[in-house]
């Protein structure tokens, strides 16, 4: 499997996700944002960080960059795309994913390990997980408060497009265990064709026992198949 990690000025989880991909045997390439064409890839990753300083709106400026036009084309033709954190924000700015990520409800940056629940394991991104499996994954963001209109929310639910929800240790999704105020505790969503996943938690931070845990491994190993 070939993967490409798009690097914007201000990306800062690009190396982290590249390490994860290589560990999982992807043949990975870093793609600088000024490039106008993408290398052949089965998976495109838009990493976390603060592209363009998160100025204006997080993800806004990156979402309008040249290389992203190529990403959009690839996404529309079915290429797998994973947007993590800032990557998720960028994907919503491009319209590849619907909705938006508002400021955290406490208006503070939040970095902690949270529990999330796998809401759909019938996808290329999540097939190695069990349905309703609870993962402990690190989040680190200012704007992770997912918001969308009622119509789209209904669609997300009906078509099983919610990937992960924040929850407590037992999998219950309630307000108390909603770190950032996201609508219905949503931590990640798919597009309609389920070839694009955007998520706020950082699976690439959870691939090494010495550092944290290995709950993120199966996301990458689901993809390699």
């Amino acid at each position, binding site marked *: 499997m070939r993967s490409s990690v798009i690097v914007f000025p201000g990306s800062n989880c690009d190396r982290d996700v590249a390490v994860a991909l290589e560990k999982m045997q992807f043949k990975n390439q870093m793609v600088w944002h000024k490039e106008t064409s993408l290398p052949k890839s089965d998976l495109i990753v838009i990493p976390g960080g603060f592209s*363009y*300083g998160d*100025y*204006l709106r997080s993800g806004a*400026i990156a979402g*309008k960059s040249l290389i992203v036009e190529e990403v959009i084309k690839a996404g529309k033709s079915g290429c797998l795309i994973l947007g993590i954190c800032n990557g998720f924000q960028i994907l919503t700015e491009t319209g590849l994913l619907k909705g938006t990520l508002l400021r955290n409800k406490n208006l503070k940056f939040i970095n902690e390990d949270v529990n999330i629940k796998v809401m759909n394991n019938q996808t290329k991104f999540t097939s190695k997980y069990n349905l309703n499996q609870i993962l402990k994954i690190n989040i680190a963001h200012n704007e992770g408060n997912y918001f969308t209109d009622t119509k789209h929310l209904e669609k997300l639910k009906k078509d099983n497009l919610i990937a992960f929800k924040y929850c407590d240790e037992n999998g219950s999704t309630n307000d108390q265990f909603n770190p950032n105020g996201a609508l219905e505790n949503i931590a990640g969503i798919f597009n309609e064709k389920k070839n694009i996943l955007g998520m706020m938690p950082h699976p690439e931070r959870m691939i090494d026992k010495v550092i944290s845990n290995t709950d993120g491994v199966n996301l990458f190993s689901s993809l390699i198949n």
Partner: protein
Amino acid sequence: MVKQYQSNSKKNKLKYSVTVTLKKNVLDPQGKVVENTLKGKGMNNLKNIRQGKYFEIEVEEQDETKATQTINQMCEKLLVNLIIEDYKISKL
């Protein structure tokens, strides 16, 4: 009856806008990046952008002087960082 009540209640509310801008010589990193991005997209006649904040504030108050007083207080207490920012209040 109902109508009258409504119009009354309307009268009791005043709405203002507050624009907050960075003082003249203070660096505006956001504005600068936005400016460069727009120029990079071919907007060559763009000379300068500065970014600020904008608030729409409704207060339950009939008296305009009192209302602006309140809003001024809000600005100085919370909304504006007077060390690096200026602000302007207008009635909407």
